[in-house]
C-alpha cells in the first residue's frame, strides 16, 4: 500500500471515530441481566395521502352538485343542504384545513422554493374550484367553501351597502392576495392561514384573540352578509375573474325577466344588477373620463410601486431573520437579555452576526423587488376600479352580477315567472 493511501486511511479512521465519539453517550447503555425487554418509542402514522385524495373527491362531488343545483335544478334547498354538509365536513370535521384559499400559498411556494414540492391534493384544491367557476360561476362559494358556509348560515338581517363603499372595500382582497403571495414567496409566513378568522371556531380551540376575531366576523355577518368573502377573501379575487367569463351562470329567472322587481331585495350581497336602459345624457364626457382614467392607470401603478419600494423595509420585518438582524443592530445590548429566546438561541448557535446580517440583507432584496411588484399590482387594481366606474353597459333585465354573485340561489325563489 502506498504511503499516502495509508495516511489517508488513518486520517479517515480518526475522522470517523472522532465524529462518532464527539456525540458520545455519556452513560453507556446497560447490559441487563433480568431479561428486561426494551420498549421502542411509538410513532403513530399521519393520516395517509390517500385520505387527502378522498377529500378531493368529496370536494369534486360537492361542487358538482352545487353547480347542478344552481344551474339545472334551480334549488336553493339543495344548495343549503350542501352548505350544511360543507360546514360539518370541511369545517368542523376536517378543521377547515387544507382549503382552497390557503392553497394559494402552497402554489406560490412551489414556484419560489426549489426544495418544496406541492402535494397533488393541495394543487387540486387550488385548481378545481377555479375550473368550475370558469364553467358555472362561483358555485364553490355557494356550497363547497367552509368559510363561506359558516358565514352564509348566520345571515339574518342583511343591510345593503352602497356601491361606492362596496367598490372601495373590494380593493382589500387584492391587497390581501398580494401580501399573501409576497409573504409565501419569501418563505416568511402563510398569512391566509394565520389570520383565518374561522379556523378557531372550526377547531373549537385557538388563541383567545383569534376566537374573538371569528365571533366578531360572525356577529358582523348577521348584518353585513359574508363580510370575509366580499371584503377580504384573496381566493375570491381569482374566483371573481373566472366568474366574469364563466360559460354558464345561474340566472334569477327560469325563462324571461318580466321586470316585476320582486327579486331586487332578495340578494343579501347586493349582487343583482338592475337594468340600465338609457345611455347617460352626457355620454361624450363619460367617454372622455374613461380615456382619462385609463391613461391614469400607469400613473397609479408607478405611484403604487413607489409606495411599495418605500415600504419594503417594513414589510420585510415580518421575516424572522430580518427581524432578528435589525433587533441586534439597533439594540446590541439585547445580547445579554436572558429572556429573549430568539437572541439567546442565536448566540448559542455560534453563528456569526455577519452571516445573519448577510442573510437578512438578501431577504430584504427579495422584499424590495416583491414590494415594487405588489405596489404596481395594487396601483393597477385601484386604477381599473376607478376606470370601471364610468363604464356603461346596457342591461335589460335583472340579473346577477357575475363577478360578485356567489350562486347561493336565494334570488331564484323570488322570481314569479314559471318555466
Amino acid at each position, binding site marked *: 500500500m502506498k504511503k499516502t493511501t495509508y495516511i489517508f486511511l488513518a486520517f479517515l479512521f480518526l475522522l470517523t471515530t472522532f465524529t462518532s465519539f464527539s456525540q458520545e*453517550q455519556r452513560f453507556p447503555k446497560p447490559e441487563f441481566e433480568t431479561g428486561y425487554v426494551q420498549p*421502542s418509542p411509538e410513532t403513530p402514522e*399521519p393520516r395517509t395521502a390517500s385520505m387527502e385524495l378522498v377529500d378531493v373527491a368529496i370536494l369534486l362531488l360537492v361542487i358538482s352538485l352545487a353547480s347542478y343545483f344552481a344551474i339545472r335544478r334551480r334549488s336553493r334547498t339543495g344548495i343549503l343542504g350542501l352548505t350544511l354538509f360543507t360546514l360539518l365536513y370541511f369545517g368542523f370535521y376536517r378543521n377547515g384545513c387544507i382549503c382552497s384559499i390557503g392553497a394559494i400559498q402552497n402554489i406560490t411556494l412551489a414556484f419560489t422554493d426549489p426544495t418544496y414540492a*406541492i402535494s397533488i391534493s393541495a394543487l387540486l384544491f387550488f*385548481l378545481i374550484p377555479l375550473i368550475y367557476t370558469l364553467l358555472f360561476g362561483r358555485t364553490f362559494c355557494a356550497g363547497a367553501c367552509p368559510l363561506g358556509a359558516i358565514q352564509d348560515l348566520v345571515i339574518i338581517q342583511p343591510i345593503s351597502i352602497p356601491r361606492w363603499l362596496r367598490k372601495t372595500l373590494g380593493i382589500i382582497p387584492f391587497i390581501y392576495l398580494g401580501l399573501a403571495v409576497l409573504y409565501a414567496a419569501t418563505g416568511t409566513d*402563510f398569512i391566509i392561514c394565520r389570520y383565518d378568522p374561522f379556523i378557531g371556531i372550526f377547531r373549537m*380551540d385557538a388563541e383567545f384573540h383569534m376566537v374573538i376575531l371569528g365571533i366578531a366576523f360572525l356577529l358582523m355577518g348577521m348584518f353585513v352578509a359574508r363580510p370575509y368573502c366580499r371584503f377580504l377573501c384573496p381566493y375570491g379575487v381569482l374566483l371573481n375573474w373566472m366568474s366574469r367569463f364563466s360559460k354558464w351562470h345561474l340566472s334569477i329567472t327560469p325563462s324571461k325577466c318580466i321586470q316585476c322587481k320582486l327579486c331586487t331585495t332578495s340578494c343579501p350581497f347586493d349582487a343583482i344588477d338592475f337594468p340600465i336602459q338609457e345611455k347617460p345624457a352626457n355620454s361624450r364626457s363619460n367617454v372622455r373620463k374613461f380615456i382619462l382614467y385609463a391613461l391614469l392607470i400607469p400613473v397609479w401603478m408607478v405611484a403604487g410601486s413607489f409606495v411599495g419600494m418605500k415600504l419594503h423595509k417594513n414589510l420585510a420585518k415580518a421575516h424572522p431573520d430580518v427581524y432578528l438582524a435589525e433587533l441586534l443592530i439597533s439594540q446590541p445590548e439585547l445580547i445579554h437579555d436572558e429572556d429573549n429566546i430568539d437572541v*439567546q438561541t442565536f448566540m448559542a448557535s455560534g453563528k456569526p452576526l455577519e452571516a445573519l446580517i448577510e442573510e437578512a440583507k438578501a431577504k430584504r432584496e427579495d422584499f424590495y423587488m416583491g414590494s415594487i411588484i405588489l405596489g404596481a399590482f395594487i396601483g393597477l387594481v385601484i386604477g381599473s376600479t376607478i376606470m370601471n366606474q364610468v363604464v356603461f353597459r346596457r342591461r335589460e333585465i335583472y340579473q346577477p352580477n357575475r363577478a360578485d354573485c356567489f350562486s347561493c340561489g336565494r334570488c331564484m325563489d323570488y322570481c314569479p315567472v314559471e318555466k
Partner: protein
Amino acid sequence: MEKKAENRREFIQKSARLSLVLALGGVGGFALTKTTKDEWVWQIDPFKCTQCGRCESDCVLAPSAVKCIHAYDLCGYCDLCGGYFKPDANELSTAGENQLCPTAAIERKFIEEPYFEYIINEDLCIGCAKCVEGCTSFGNGSFHLQIMHNICLNCNECSIARVCPSDAISRVKSNEAYKVKGDFTTNT
C-alpha cells in the same frame, strides 16, 4: 346593430375565457411538474431543537401536538436521571417536588440494580421540553420532542415552525414523518 354588439360581446367573453383557461393551464401545468405523491407533514429535528419551550405554547392545539418521546436505545437507565429529577432535587424519589416534569408525565420504574426505566405518558405530556433539556444537558439526550401525527392537525403552516428559534421544524414527506433519535453508534 344590436346583433353586432351581442356578437362582439360574445367574442370578448370567449377570448377572455380562453385566456383564463390558458393561464390556469400554465399555472397548473407548472405546478404539476413540482408535485409529489406524498403529503407533507411537520417534523422536529431533535438535533437542532434547543428546548426553548415554544413547542408547548405555540401549537394551535392545547395541549400541544408535540410530545416528548424516549429513544430507549440511547438511554443510560440512570438512577440519577437528568430528565426526571430537578437539578436541586433533595432525594432520588418519585415525590412530585423532585420531578422536573410539570405534569408528572414521566414514569420511573425500577428494572434491576442500579437501573431505572423512564416511560413518558403521552396523555400527560405537554411538550414543554423541560425533561429534554435536562436529559440533553446532563444525560444521553434520549428524551426528545417529536410532533405526534395522531394529534397534529397538519396545519398548512405549523405555527410552532414559524417561531422556533432554531429552525428545527420543517416540512417532510409523510412517509418519513418522524425523526427519532437512534443509536449513537450508527449515528442516526
